[in-house]
C-alpha cells in the first residue's frame, strides 16, 4: 500500500473513533471521564491480547476456534495452582504453559497432519473445556487469590498506565517486532499469502503454522490471566467471551487498514471496546451489544473480502447510473 493511502486510512480510523466517542459522550458525558477511559482500556487489554495471538493464525490463513476453551483451561489451571499455595509466578506460568501446549498441539495437527483447522480446533477447544472441569468439578476457584498478589495485576500501575494496558502494549510491541520487523514475520506472511511459493522459497511452512497456533494459545492464556485478575475468580467459562471480540478485532482491523497486522488488530480492538463500553454505559442490555458486535463482525468480513466489497461497489455504481 502506498504511504498516502495508508495515511488516508489512519485519518479515517481516527475520524470514526472521534465520531463514535462524540456520539456516546453526547448521550452520557461520563463516557469521556478518566475513570471510564481507564475501564475501557482495561477491557481492551483482555480482548486485545487474545486478538493479538489470533492475528498470527489469521496471517497464515488458518482459523483457531479453540482459544476460548484453552483460555478457560488456562484460567482454571492457574486458579488451582494458586489455591494449592503455589507462588503467583508458578501459577501464571502454569496457565500460560497450558496455552502453549494446546497451541502446539493444534499446530501439529493442522500443519503436520493436514487436519481441517476449524473442526480440529473446535475439538481441541472442547477438550480443553472438559479438562478445565477436573480441578473443581466446575465450581469457580478464588481461594488464596486475594493473598497471592494476582489482583495487583489488574489494580497496579506501570509508567502511569494501568498494568493490564501496559501488558497489552508490551505484548503488541513484541508481536509487532516479530511480525513486522523480523525474518519470522516475513515467513509468516509468505506462508499465508502463498504456501506453495513459500515452500519453494525455503520457508519452513509447517513450522510457521505451528508457531502461529502456539502464539495464539499463549496469548489467549495471557489474556485470561488479566480477566481472572480483574474478576477475582477463575471459572470454567472464563474464556467463552473472548471468541467473538477477538475475531471481530482482527477482521475489523484488516478491513480498516487493508491487511492483517498488529497495529490493525489493535485498532480493531479499540473500536470494539469503544462500542461495547459505550453500550454498557448507556445501559443497553448485553444481548443487544452482542448482536451489534456480531453485526460489526459480519460487516468487517464483508469489507475485508475484495469480492464482497467489489460487488457492493458495483451495485452502488449501478444504482447511480440508474438514478
Amino acid at each position: 500500500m502506498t504511504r498516502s493511502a495508508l495515511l488516508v486510512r489512519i485519518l479515517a480510523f481516527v475520524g470514526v473513533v472521534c465520531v463514535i466517542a462524540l456520539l456516546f459522550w453526547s448521550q452520557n458525558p461520563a463516557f469521556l471521564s478518566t475513570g471510564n477511559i481507564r475501564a475501557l482500556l482495561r477491557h481492551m487489554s483482555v480482548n486485545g491480547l487474545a486478538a493479538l495471538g489470533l492475528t498470527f493464525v489469521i496471517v497464515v490463513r488458518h482459523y483457531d476456534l479453540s482459544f476460548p476453551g484453552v483460555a478457560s483451561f488456562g484460567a482454571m489451571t492457574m486458579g488451582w495452582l494458586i489455591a494449592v499455595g503455589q507462588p503467583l509466578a508458578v501459577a501464571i506460568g502454569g496457565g500460560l504453559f497450558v496455552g502453549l501446549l494446546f497451541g502446539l498441539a493444534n499446530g501439529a495437527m493442522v500443519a503436520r497432519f493436514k487436519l481441517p483447522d476449524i473442526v480440529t480446533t473446535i475439538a481441541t477447544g472442547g477438550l480443553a473445556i472438559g479438562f478445565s472441569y477436573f480441578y473443581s468439578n466446575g465450581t469457580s476457584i478464588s481461594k488464596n487469590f486475594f493473598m497471592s498478589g494476582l489482583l495487583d495485576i489488574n489494580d497496579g500501575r506501570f509508567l502511569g498506565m494501568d498494568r493490564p494496558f501496559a501488558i497489552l502494549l508490551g505484548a503488541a510491541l513484541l508481536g509487532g517486532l516479530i511480525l513486522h520487523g523480523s525474518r519470522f514475520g516475513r515467513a509468516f506472511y509468505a506462508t499465508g499469502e502463498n504456501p506453495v511459493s513459500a515452500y519453494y522459497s525455503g520457508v519452513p511452512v509447517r513450522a510457521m503454522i505451528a508457531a502461529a497456533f502456539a502464539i495464539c494459545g499463549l496469548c489467549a492464556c495471557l489474556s485470561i490471566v488479566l480477566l481472572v485478575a480483574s474478576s477475582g475468580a477463575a471459572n470454567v467459562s472464563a474464556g467463552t467471551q473472548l471468541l467473538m471480540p477477538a475475531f471481530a478485532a482482527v477482521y475489523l482491523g484488516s478491513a480498516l487498514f487493508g491487511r492483517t497486522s498488529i497495529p490493525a488488530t489493535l485498532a480493531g480492538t479499540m473500536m470494539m471496546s469503544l462500542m461495547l463500553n459505550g453500550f454498557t454505559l448507556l445501559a443497553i442490555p448485553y444481548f443487544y451489544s452482542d448482536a451489534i458486535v456480531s453485526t460489526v463482525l459480519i460487516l468487517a468480513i464483508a469489507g475485508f473480502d475484495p469480492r464482497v466489497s467489489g460487488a457492493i461497489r458495483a451495485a452502488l455504481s449501478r444504482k447511480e447510473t440508474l438514478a
Partner: protein
Amino acid sequence: METDSFLSMRGIGKTFGDVRALREVDFGLRRGEIHALLGVNGAGKSTLIKILSGVYSKDAGSIRIAGEEFALGTPRAAIDAGIAVVQQHPELVGDLSGAENIFLGQESERPGFLARVDHAEIRRKAQALLSRFPIEIDLGKPVGEMSAVDREIVAILHALRLENARILILDEPTSTLTEREKQSLFGMMETLKAQGLAIIYITHHLDEVFEIADRFTVFRGGRNVATHRVDEARGGAISIPNLMLDTVAGHVFPPHSDRTDGQVVFEARGLGRTDEFRGIDLTARKGEILGIFGLVGSGLDELSKTLFGVLQPDTGELRLHGQPVMFRSPAQALKAGVFLVPGDRRTEGLSMQEDVVFNTTVANLGRASAGGFLRFGRNRRDAMALAERVDLQPRKLNRPLRGFSGGNQQKVVVAKGLYRQSDVYIFVEPTVGVDIGARAKIYGLMRELSETAAVIVMSSDCDEVFGVADRCVALYKGAPMGSPSRDLTRDHLLHAGIMGDPAR
C-alpha cells in the same frame, strides 16, 4: 473455408486483459469425423474449447451448428446446443458406481428433494447407453476402483447421457492411459464416429493423430494456422512440428558459449521416478547452459521438481560439487546452492499480494536480516540494485506483484534467485506469458548467470531450449533421447521431443 461443416466457427476472437488468446479463428467440424486439435501450450486450443463448452463467452465471431446460429456463453447453453465435453481430468465421484456417475445430477425423473433415486432404472439406462459400444465394463463398480480407461469411458458416457449430444470434445483423454487401454478408447471413438457424432480431439501426441484422426488443425499464437487431412501429412509432406512452433527471431537469444572446460557443479546419474522419468544422466557445468526439451507429460516437470527436492528420486543419485546429495525439501536444496525458477510463477514463484522487496528477499531471509531482524534499508537497496539488473519495469519496489506484467513478474523471480546467490539455477518454462522484450532480457540474464553458476533450462518450447542452451537433450515419455549434445540440429531436437526418435 468449407461450407459443408456441421459446426462452423468464424472469426472467433477472445481477449483476456491485454492478451489476445484467439484472433480471427475459423474452425470447421464435420459429422462423423475425428478432428485433432494441435498446438503448444498457450496456442489457443483450450480457449477455443472453453468457448465451445460455454465456460468463456466469445468476444467476436459467430458459431453455427447445423446451420443454426448459437451464442453459447454458458455451460447450460452449450449442453442445450448438443455439445458434450470430457475434461482432461474428469471429475467423477469415486465412491459412486459407474452407472451412478453417468447420471449424476439427473438421478430421478421427478424433480424435488424427496424424489426417490431409482437405482435399478439408472443401472438399466447406463447399460443401454454402454451397449451402443463394443466395450465391456462393469458399471456397478465404484469409479474409484476402476482402471484409468474405464473411468475415461464412464466420463464419456456421462457426457453422452443427453439424447441431443452431437458434438463430443475430448481433452487429452489418453494422457493417463497405457498403450493397450488407448486402443479400447480408440475403439469407442470409432463407434461414435460411425454413429455420426462429430469429435474434437485434443492431444500432444502426434502419433495418435495419425492413428485415429481424419483431419487436424494446428493452433499457434491464438490463430488457426492450418487445417489438413491426416493423409495429406502422412509421409512427411507436411511437417506438423514446424506448424506448431513459431519461427523465433534469432536475436532474442544471446550468443552461445564454446566453453566446455567449465567446472562441473551439478550431476544426475541414472535418476528416475516410477512412471514419470528414468535413466536421466546430466552434467551441468559453469560457463555453459544445459537445455532439456520435453512436452507436457514428458516428465520434465517432475524432473525439475526432483532436482530441487520437491520430489525424491526412486533410483539414481544427484551430486553437487562431486559430493552425493539428497534433498528432502526445497529448503535443503536452496541451502546447498540450488535455485529453481519454477514453471508456474503465480502459484510456485511469487506472493502476488506482496511487493517487490518482499518477493526478492523471501528466499534468503538469513541474508535479509541481522540477528533475526530485517535490515529494511539494506534490503531495499539490494532489491533496487537487482531490479536494475533484471530491468524491472516499472521500477516500483512498493507495488504488489499482481500489478506487474507477466514478463516483469518473471524478472522478479529471477531477481529472487540472484539474491539467493546460488551455484545452480534451474529455469523451468522461463518465458511462458512473457513478452518478447522481457524474454530477451531473461535469456541474457541466464547467459550472465552461467558465467558464475551452472544453468539448466527446461522447457516445452523447442526453439527456446535450442536457442538459449549450449548443449541440449530431449525428454520423450520420461526417457532422455540420447545424451546432451552440442551438435544437435533444431529439427533433431524437435523430432526427438515430439516423435521420440533418438537423435541419430
